[in-house]
């Protein structure tokens, strides 16, 4: 029955949906990582705050769209705050100190969420127009999932345009390649990097709201996506948009197909895939910078 083409299409859509969520989460992390050499383990915490801010806004306005518009901005402000008071100081600190600080932020963020919103799992209601389903080759499919796929593709295109076709984009790309050189040209690389950091936070918040309508919103949701996101980042290679796209597609589809076709090994499919890729390509598939 699994060879039925409709079944395959449905499952591929499921995989794409997961891939797009992972893309929103990982692209910011990957570029920040590649550009600024900052190991931000608290990226999942930003995603969690996105979901909780979303619930907060939803409860006030009864509108999913208000939540989608406002919550990511809130997360971005939060990110900017922590950038100013902490992360800026760690720009040139050894990676292990960054690990310790961002791990500390995970702990603090988790308890902040528990204190503000309690421990119980909850969820964001889907928007009215995407709460139903559509027919795909005669199969019922949730339209919200198609919305996620569409949103992911939209963000992808916008980022592609910004990075490849604008001046800021070329500064960022050059900055990843050779930061010293760009600084010498009198360009404020730090400002460009700060912008990238903010966009990364925004996208993490955005994915939090979007995912909050499908996945449970609960303390600890940060840790469950952190690992997936890091896997996407290393599989794709640090610092490149192409890497984030390919990485999230591979991991999203592998996770889904794994659950369908080899359920016995579903919990290790992506780990095995990552291990194989890293052994063949120790710097990931499309790193922005060649590995020294």
């Amino acid at each position: 029955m699994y060879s039925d083409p409709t079944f395959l299409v449905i499952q591929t859509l499921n995989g794409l949906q997961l891939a797009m969520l992972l893309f929103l989460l990982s692209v910011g992390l990957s570029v920040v990582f590649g550009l600024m050499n900052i190991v931000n383990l608290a990226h999942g915490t930003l995603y969690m705050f996105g979901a909780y801010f979303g619930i907060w806004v939803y409860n006030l306005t009864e509108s999913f769209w208000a939540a989608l518009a406002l919550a990511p901005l809130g997360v971005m402000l939060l990110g900017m705050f922590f950038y100013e008071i902490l992360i800026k100081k760690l720009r040139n600190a050894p990676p292990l100190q960054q690990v310790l600080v961002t791990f500390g932020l995970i702990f603090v963020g988790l308890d902040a969420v528990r204190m503000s919103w309690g421990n119980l799992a909850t969820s964001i209601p889907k928007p009215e127009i995407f709460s139903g389903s559509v027919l795909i080759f005669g199969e019922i499919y949730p339209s919200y999932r198609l919305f996620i796929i569409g949103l992911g593709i939209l963000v992808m295109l916008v980022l592609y345009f910004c990075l490849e076709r604008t001046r800021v984009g070329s500064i960022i790309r050059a900055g990843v390649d050779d930061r010293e050189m760009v600084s010498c040209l009198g360009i404020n690389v730090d400002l460009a990097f700060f912008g990238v950091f903010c966009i990364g936070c925004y996208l993490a918040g955005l994915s939090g709201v979007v995912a909050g309508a499908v996945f449970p919103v609960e303390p600890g949701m940060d840790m469950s996506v952190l690992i997936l996101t890091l896997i996407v980042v290393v599989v794709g290679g640090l610092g490149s948009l192409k890497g984030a796209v390919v990485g999230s597609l591979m991991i999203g589809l592998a996770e889904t197909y794994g659950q369908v076709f080899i359920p016995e090994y579903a919990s290790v499919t992506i780990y095995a895939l990552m291990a194989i890729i890293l052994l063949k390509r120790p710097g990931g598939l499309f790193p922005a910078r060649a590995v020294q």
Partner: protein
Amino acid sequence: MKKLFTLDRFVALFLIALSLLLSESVEYYGQELIAEITILAIFAMSLDLLVGYAGLVSLGHAAFLGIGSYATGILTVQYGWEMFPTMLISIALAGLVSALVGIFVVRLEGIFFIMITLAVSQMFHAYFLKNREFGGDDGMPGIQRLDLEAFGLTVFDPADFAKFTLIVAVLVYIGLDLLMSSPFGRYLIGIHQNENRMRSLGVPVEQYKLAIFIIAGMVAGLSGSLQAQHTGFVSPDAMFWTVSGVVLIMVIAGGTGSLVGAVVGAVIVRLLSHQISSLTEHWMLFMGLFFIAIVLFASDGIYGTFAKYCRRSRWWKSAGNSSD
């Protein structure tokens, strides 16, 4: 110039004396806690070999602790083996598995090494979680302790078991300390500092890394075997990546690159979280702030910073130690 009394050894001696003294004076639960923390300290030292000395940041080290625990549990409970040979086999098995893993992973660097070790440990975790023969996620209970009647220790007495773990910890410390001050250890530190230079000097970098990966795996296996004996059970939770993560945090908090730093980190972080979690359910908030404070105010870690001030102090210099 080799010195016998380095600051590290001095502090190590102090810690051991203190623990021995405490294991006599504190109550039952305190003795249990000493054993628990001592085992954790052994595990932390083994991770520090990788993180602090070889620059290999592993987020999957708990896998080898788990293998040590499971080997001990399976051999004694399901096959009725004696504990002493079981412990040796557990250590050897952890070493063997780390050799098999190490051959593939030591080539990787930075975040890629972190992630591949994480992947490996998660696969082991998934295996034991699924395997209902070994108890699945409920784990395997009924593990006994090493019989030490011959040495006058009754291991079911918590004070004696605490002493036993302390003795093992001391032996591990001495062994690793000697290893790290040997040429092997100095090459390793050299690799950590400048890999390319060592490579051009003809040092077989990968082999050194593999060797330390295996040694660290064996020590982790030993701590796993001890932990199984202490708690009397083993469950897949012991090898989940967060266990590796927490111990990594302990090592960094204590100060990497010195065995004593790892021990200090394990002791302080464990005691603090234990105490704070008795007082408030929001203990993670305080631990998080504590970690952030360490980086801001004691960037070399708790012990690392302490050692730096000590070595600068007049007292330490006047004791005839220009530097160590």
